[in-house]
C-alpha cells in the first residue's frame, strides 16, 4: 500500500512535469501547426541555465531567470528562424526545429561539456516531506508539484481570463479572422512560442536536479513528450494533461515492478514453452520492459483510437 501511494505521488509529480512540456508543445502545435522538435532542447537549456545560475547566485534566482532567458531565446528562434521557413510549409518548419535540436545539443557540449553536471537540489528542499509507513516522500517532489500546479493554474487563468489569452485562443482556430480584426498574429506566434519555451525551461529548472542534467536529457524526454501529445490527441490541452499523468504514472510504476509472464506462469504451476526467443520474451519483467511501454501505448492508441484520448482531429 505504501509502495502504491508513494509511487503514485512520484508518478503524478513526473506527470505534471511532462505536462509543463507537453502543454507548451500542444499550444505551439495547435496555433502554428509546427511540431517543435527542439522543445525538449529548451527543457535542457533551462536545466543548464539553472545549474550555472544556481552555482553562482542561487537556486531561487535561477527559478525566475532561467525560464525567462529560455523564453527570450525561444522568441528569437521564432522571429529569425521559423518565420523565415514558414513559407516553405510545415515539413520545412519541422526540419528547422530538428536541426535546431542538433545545434543546441552541440552548443551544450561546447559550453558545459559532455558529462553530466552537478546540478543539485537546494539544501532547503533536501529531505523528506513526510513518511507513509516508513517510506518517505522527498520535499523536492512536493515542491515540483507545487511549482507545476501553480504555473499551470496561472497559464489557465491567462488563457481564459485575460484579453491576450482570449486573442490567442481565437487565433488558434481562426488566425485570419483575428488578423483581419487588427491583431498582430505573427507577434502572437512569437509570444506563444516564447511562452512555450519558457514553460519548457521552467520544467528544466525543476526537473534538471530531480533527474540528471546531461546533454542526452533532451532526447530522452523529447520522445516521451511526443508520445504524450499523440496519446492525448494532437492539439488538445486536456488530452495532453490526462496523457501526461497517465504516462508519468505508467513509467514510474513499471520501473518498480518485476512481474513477468514466466513468473505468472510459475505461480500457476505452469512451465513456459521451450525455445530461445520464447524464453527470452516470457522472462522479461515489467521493469525491463518499462522503456518500451509508452511507445507500445502510443501504437495501441494509434490502432484503436487514432485521434487520441481527447483529440478532435485524427492523428
Amino acid at each position, binding site marked *: 500500500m505504501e509502495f502504491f501511494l508513494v509511487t503514485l505521488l512520484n508518478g503524478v509529480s513526473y506527470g505534471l512535469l511532462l505536462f509543463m512540456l507537453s502543454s507548451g508543445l500542444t499550444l505551439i502545435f495547435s496555433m502554428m501547426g509546427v511540431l517543435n522538435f527542439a522543445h525538449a532542447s529548451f527543457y535542457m537549456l533551462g536545466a543548464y541555465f539553472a545549474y550555472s545560475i544556481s552555482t553562482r547566485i542561487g537556486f531561487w534566482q535561477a527559478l525566475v531567470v532561467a525560464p525567462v532567458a529560455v523564453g527570450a531565446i525561444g522568441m528569437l528562434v521564432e522571429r529569425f528562424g521559423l518565420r523565415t521557413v514558414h513559407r516553405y510549409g510545415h515539413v520545412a518548419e519541422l526540419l528547422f526545429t530538428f536541426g535546431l535540436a542538433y545545434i543546441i545539443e*552541440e552548443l551544450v557540449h561546447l559550453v558545459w561539456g559532455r558529462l553530466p553536471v552537478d546540478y543539485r537540489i537546494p539544501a532547503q528542499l533536501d529531505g523528506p516531506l513526510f513518511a507513509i509507513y516508513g517510506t518517505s516522500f522527498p520535499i523536492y517532489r512536493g515542491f515540483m508539484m507545487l511549482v507545476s500546479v501553480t504555473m499551470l493554474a496561472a497559464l489557465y487563468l491567462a488563457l481564459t481570463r485575460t484579453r491576450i489569452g482570449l486573442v490567442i485562443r481565437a487565433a488558434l482556430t481562426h488566425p485570419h479572422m483575428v488578423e483581419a480584426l487588427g491583431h498582430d498574429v505573427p507577434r502572437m506566434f512569437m509570444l506563444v512560442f516564447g511562452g512555450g519555451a519558457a514553460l519548457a525551461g521552467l520544467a528544466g529548472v525543476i526537473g534538471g536536479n530531480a533527474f540528471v542534467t546531461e546533454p542526452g536529457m533532451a532526447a530522452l524526454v523529447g520522445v516521451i513528450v511526443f508520445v504524450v501529445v499523440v496519446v492525448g490527441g494532437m492539439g488538445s490541452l486536456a488530452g495532453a494533461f490526462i496523457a501526461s499523468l497517465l504516462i508519468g504514472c505508467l513509467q514510474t510504476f513499471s520501473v518498480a515492478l518485476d512481474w513477468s509472464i514466466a513468473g505468472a506462469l510459475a505461480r500457476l504451476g505452469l512451465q513456459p514453452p521451450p525455445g530461445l526467443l520464447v524464453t527470452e520474451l516470457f522472462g522479461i519483467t515489467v521493469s525491463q520492459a518499462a522503456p518500451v511501454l509508452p511507445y507500445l501505448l502510443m501504437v495501441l492508441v494509434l*490502432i484503436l483510437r487514432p485521434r487520441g484520448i481527447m483529440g478532435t482531429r485524427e492523428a
Partner: protein
Amino acid sequence: MSTEARRCEPLNPWRWLPWGGAAAALALLPLVFRHGFALTLLSQMGIMVIFALSYNMLLGQSGLLSFGHAVYSGLGAYCAVHALNLIGKGQLAFPVSALPLVGGVSGALFGVLFGWVTTKKSGTTFAMISLGIAEMVAACSLMLPGFFGGEGGVTANRTVGRAFLGISYGPATQVYYLIAVWTMVATAAMFALTRTPLGRIANAVRDNPERAEFIGYDTHVVRFLQLVLAAFFAGVSGALAAINFEIVSAEALGASRSGGVLLATFIGGTGWFVGPIIGAVVYTFFVGAISSVTKAWLLYLGLFFIVMVLFAPGGVASLAAANLRVAKAGLFGRLAPAYGAALGAGLAALGGFATIVEMIYYHELEAVNDPVLRLLGLRLDVTTAPPWFGAAVVLAAGGAAFWVAARRVRVRWNEVHERLGRGSA
C-alpha cells in the same frame, strides 16, 4: 500506345552516360585511392548512398518525413549478421555476396509489420509515429539481448563463405567492390522504380492526396507500398554495413542514424534523384573525415543543415541545377564575381567561427597541458586574449561582408532570371 511510342524512341547514348560514368568511377576509384582510410570511406559512402536513396523514396518521392528509417536498415543488418553467423556454422547454404538480399527482405518484412499503422497519414503525424516506432525498436534492442546482442552487439566473420573465384571478402578491396556492385544495382533499381506507375502515383499522393483519391487510388496503400520498398533498400544497405564492419550493435537502429540519413538526404536535395547521392557523399565525408579532425563536427553539420533549410530548401542538387541552367544560357559570368565575393566573405566568417569553437574545446580539454593550439599553421595561445579577439573580429567582419555580398548575389540572381524568363517567353 505508350509501348509503341517507346519502341520507336531512338537509342540515346547520352542517357546512359551518367550510369556508365558512375560505374567506371566506382570501378577505378580504388586504383586512385590506395590508402586504406580512403577505401573505408568509399565503402561507407556506397552504403550511405543506398540508405539515403531509399530514404528519399519516402521524403522526396512520397512526401513522408520519417525520423525512424534506421529501424529498417538496422533490423536488416541484424538479420544479415545472424544469417552470416548461420553460414559460418554451416547451418545455412547461402552465398555471402547475396547476403544483402537477406537484409532487404527482412527490412521489407519489418516494413510490412510497422508500415500499415504508420502510413495512415502523412505529414507531421507520420513523422511523430515514425519517431515513436524507432524509439520502441531501440528500447526493445536492449530488452532482447538474445537477438540484439545487448550492449556489445552481434559480431560475425565475413570470410566464412566458400571462396568463389578467389573472392573471400578477406581484403577490404573485395568488400569495396561488393558494395560498389550493390550500390549500382540498388541505385538503378530505385531509379527504375521512380519510372513505374507506383513511383509516379507516389508523387501524386505527395503533391495532392485528395486528387489522387479522387482518381481512384488509395493513398494509404500507395504510401504503404513505398514504405515497404524503401525498407527493402534500407535493409540492403544495412546488410552491406554488417558485412563491412562485421559487427551490428544497437547504434545501427538508433535515433542518430535515423537523423543522419535525414540530414544527408536533405542536404543533398530531395527533389532530384541524384540529390541523396550527393548528400550521402557529403555526409559520409563529415562523419568519416571531419569527425577525426574536430570534436565539433556535428555542430558544423547541424549549422550547414539549418542554413540549407533556411536558404536552399532544395538542397545542393537544386542549387547545382539552377546554376547549370544559368551557365547553359551563358550568363554565369554575371553571377561569378558576386559568388566569389560571397564565398570569400563566407569562408572568412566560417573561419572565425570555427576558430572560436575549436579554441573553446581546446581550452576545456587540452589547455592544461599546452596552452598553444596549432590550427592550420597558426599558433594560438588560448589563455591570452588576442586570439579570441582576433577570431571574433574575423567572424564579425566576415559576417558583415557576407551579408552585403549575399544581397548582391540576390540582386544579380534576379537580374539573370529576368533575362532567362524573357529568353524562354
